[in-house]
C-alpha cells in the first residue's frame, strides 16, 4: 500500500509538469494580453510593464523562468491584482472554496447515497419514480438558473438569508444568532449540492440495483439475515464503488472551480479568481490555480484508488 502510494506520487510529478507546460503555452496562445484593456496608456509605459513581468522576453524563456519559480514553490506576482502574489490570492480564495465545496459535497453524498439506496430497494415503485424524477430535475436545472432563483426567493422575497456577501444577515441570523456566521454560506452550499445530490443518487441507485441482483445477496437472504443487514453489510460496500470513483474528481472540481456559483453569490473563492484571471489574461494567476486544481485531482484520484483497495479486497493496491 505504501509503495503503491509512493509510486503514484512519483508519477504525479511528470503529470503536473505536462499540465503546467500545456497550460502555459495554451494560455499564451490565446489572443490578447494582460494590458490590452488599458487603451489609453503610452506605448512606453506598456513596454515597461511588460518588462516588469518578463513578458518582453521570448516565450520559451518566459516558460523556463516560470518553471524555475514553480520549482521553488512560487507562483509569481499577479498581473491584475497589484501588489499581491498569486500565492496570497490563492490563500484567500482556497479557504472560502474549501468551506463551501467540502460542505456541499459532504451533504450531497449523505443525501444522494440515502436516496439512491431507497430508490434501489423500491425499484420501479412509486418511491423510486419520485426520487429519480426529482434527481432528473436536479441534473437538468443548471446552477445559473437555480442560484439566482434561490437568491430571489430566500434573499429578496423572504429576506431569510443574506445576499452576495460573506457578512451574516437576514432574519434567520437575527432569530438564531448562534448560526449567524453560517448564514452567508447556506445558499451557495445548497446551490452546489443539489446537482451533486442528483448525480450521486442516480449512481447509487444503478449500482445498488446491480448488486442486489447478485447471487451473494440471495445467499445472505437465505441465511435469514434481516433486510437491514443484507443491505448495509452485504450490498452497500460493492454498491458504493462507482460513487467513490465519482466523488474523487468531483471533490477536486467542486473545491477549485465552483465558478458559476461563486460568481452569482459574489464569493471571493478560487472559481472567481480563475474566471477573472482568464478574462484578464492574468497568466500567473490562471496557471497557479491550474496547478492547485491538477494537484487536487491527482491527490483525490490517489485517495480513491486507495479506498478501492479497502472497499474491494480483490483490488490489492500495488498490483
Amino acid at each position, binding site marked *: 500500500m505504501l509503495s503503491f502510494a509512493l509510486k503514484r506520487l512519483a508519477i504525479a510529478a511528470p503529470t503536473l509538469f505536462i499540465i503546467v507546460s500545456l497550460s502555459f503555452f495554451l494560455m499564451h496562445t490565446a489572443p490578447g494580453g494582460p494590458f490590452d484593456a488599458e487603451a489609453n496608456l503610452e506605448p512606453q509605459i506598456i513596454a515597461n510593464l511588460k518588462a516588469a513581468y518578463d513578458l518582453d522576453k521570448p516565450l520559451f524563456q518566459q516558460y523556463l523562468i516560470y518553471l524555475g519559480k514553480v520549482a521553488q514553490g512560487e507562483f509569481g506576482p499577479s498581473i491584475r491584482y497589484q501588489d499581491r502574489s498569486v500565492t496570497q490570492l490563492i490563500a484567500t480564495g482556497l479557504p472560502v472554496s474549501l468551506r463551501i465545496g467540502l460542505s456541499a459535497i459532504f451533504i450531497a453524498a449523505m443525501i444522494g447515497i440515502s436516496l439512491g439506496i431507497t430508490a434501489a430497494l423500491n*425499484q420501479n415503485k412509486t418511491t423510486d419514480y419520485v426520487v429519480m424524477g426529482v434527481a432528473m430535475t436536479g441534473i437538468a436545472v443548471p446552477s445559473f438558473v437555480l442560484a439566482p432563483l434561490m437568491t430571489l426567493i430566500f434573499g429578496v422575497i423572504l429576506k431569510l438569508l443574506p445576499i452576495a456577501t460573506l457578512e451574516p444577515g437576514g432574519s434567520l441570523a437575527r432569530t438564531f444568532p448562534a448560526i449567524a456566521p453560517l448564514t452567508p454560506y447556506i445558499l451557495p452550499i445548497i446551490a452546489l449540492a443539489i446537482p451533486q445530490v442528483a448525480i450521486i443518487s442516480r449512481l447509487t441507485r444503478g449500482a445498488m440495483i446491480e448488486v442486489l*441482483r*447478485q*447471487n*451473494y445477496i*440471495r*445467499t*445472505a*437472504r*437465505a*441465511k*435469514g*439475515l*434481516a*433486510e437491514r*443487514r443484507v443491505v448495509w*453489510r*452485504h450490498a452497500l*460496500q*460493492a454498491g458504493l464503488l462507482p460513487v467513490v470513483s465519482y466523488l474523487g474528481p468531483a471533490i477536486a472540481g467542486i473545491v477549485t472551480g465552483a465558478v458559476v456559483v461563486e460568481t452569482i453569490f459574489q464569493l471571493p473563492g478560487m472559481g472567481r479568481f480563475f474566471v477573472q484571471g482568464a478574462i484578464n489574461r492574468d497568466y500567473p494567476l490562471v496557471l497557479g490555480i491550474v496547478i492547485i486544481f491538477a494537484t487536487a485531482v491527482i491527490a483525490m484520484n490517489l485517495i480513491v484508488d486507495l479506498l478501492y483497495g479497502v*472497499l*474491494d*479486497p*480483490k483490488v490489492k493496491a500495488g498490483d
Partner: protein
Amino acid sequence: MNPVLTLDHLNVSFATNNGEVSAVSDLSLSITPGECVGIVGESGSGKSQTFLGAMGLLANNGTATGRVVFQGQDLLTLDRAALNKIRGDRMAMIFQDAGTSLTPHMRIGDQLIEVLTTHKGHSRQAARQRVLEVMESMRIPEIEKRLTQYPHEFSGGMRQRVMIAMALVCEPDLLIADEPTTALDVTVQAQILNLFRALKRHTKSAIVLITHDLGVVAGLCDRVAVMYAGRIVEEAPVADIFAAPKHPYTQGLLKCMPRLDQLLDAELDAIPGQPPNLQNLPNGCAFAERCVNANTRCHNERPALRELSSARRAACHLLEAA
C-alpha cells in the same frame, strides 16, 4: 412420521414483458425427517425455482402460490421477519456457484459467524468456536487462517465447503442443495459428494439434492422425484427408478447416461426434440412432443400424477393403458 416439508399444489410463475411464465405448476411433494430426496430434471424444468419459491428467494418478478408447510407452518403466509427466523436456522440452502454466492468483500469468518449471531444469539467468540468445529468437519485445512480470508482467496472446492459449512452451522432440519457439485472439477465433485455422504450418516437433517446428474442421485438419495416442464412426472425410491423407470422421460434420461459396459463408439440415446416453451405449455402431456409412444390422448389431455404403488407415482397415460 410427520413430514419436515410439504409442498402442496405449489405454483411458481414470473411476470415478464412477454406475459406470465409458469416455472412450476401444481407441484406436491413431501419430505420426511432424515431422508435424502433427489430432484432431477434438465435446466429449466423448475427444480431450483420450486425450492427458491419455498424459501422466499424468488427474483422480484416471481410469485409462489399454494402451500409450503415447514414443520407445521405455511411459509408462504409468513412475513419477512418470521420467515427470516426459519431460513438459515432450521432450513438452509446451498447454492450452485459458490464463487458468486459468497459476499466478495466480507471475510469468510464473518460470513459464517453472522449466521450464528443472528439465529442463536451467540457471542462472536462462541460463534467462532462453533464455526471452527463445522469447518473442521468439512475438512478445510488451516481453518484459523482461512477465517480471515476473502472468498477470492479460496479455490472452487474450498468455497463450496464454506457454503456447506455455512448451511450447517445451525444444524438445520432441512438442507436444500441446489446443484452443489455442478460447477466443480470431477475430483473435487467426488470430495464434495463424500462430504454429503458423511453428512447423511452423521446428521438428522433431511436433504433435498437438486441435480441434473443421475449419478449423483444414485450414490446419495433414498428417493427421487423427476421433474419435466415444471411438474413432477415420476417419483420413486432410488433403486426402483434405476431398475424399472416408468415414465418415458425417466427412461430417456437413463438411456442418456454413458455406461462403462458399453462400447466406446456406441452412440448415446439422446431424447429427441427440445423441452416445451414454459410460456406456451401444451394442453396435453408436456413430454408428448418428444415421446415415441405418444397417442392423441397424450396430446390433448394432461396426465395426472397417479399412485402406482405405495411409494411410486408417475404421470403418464401409457401406464394406465398397460
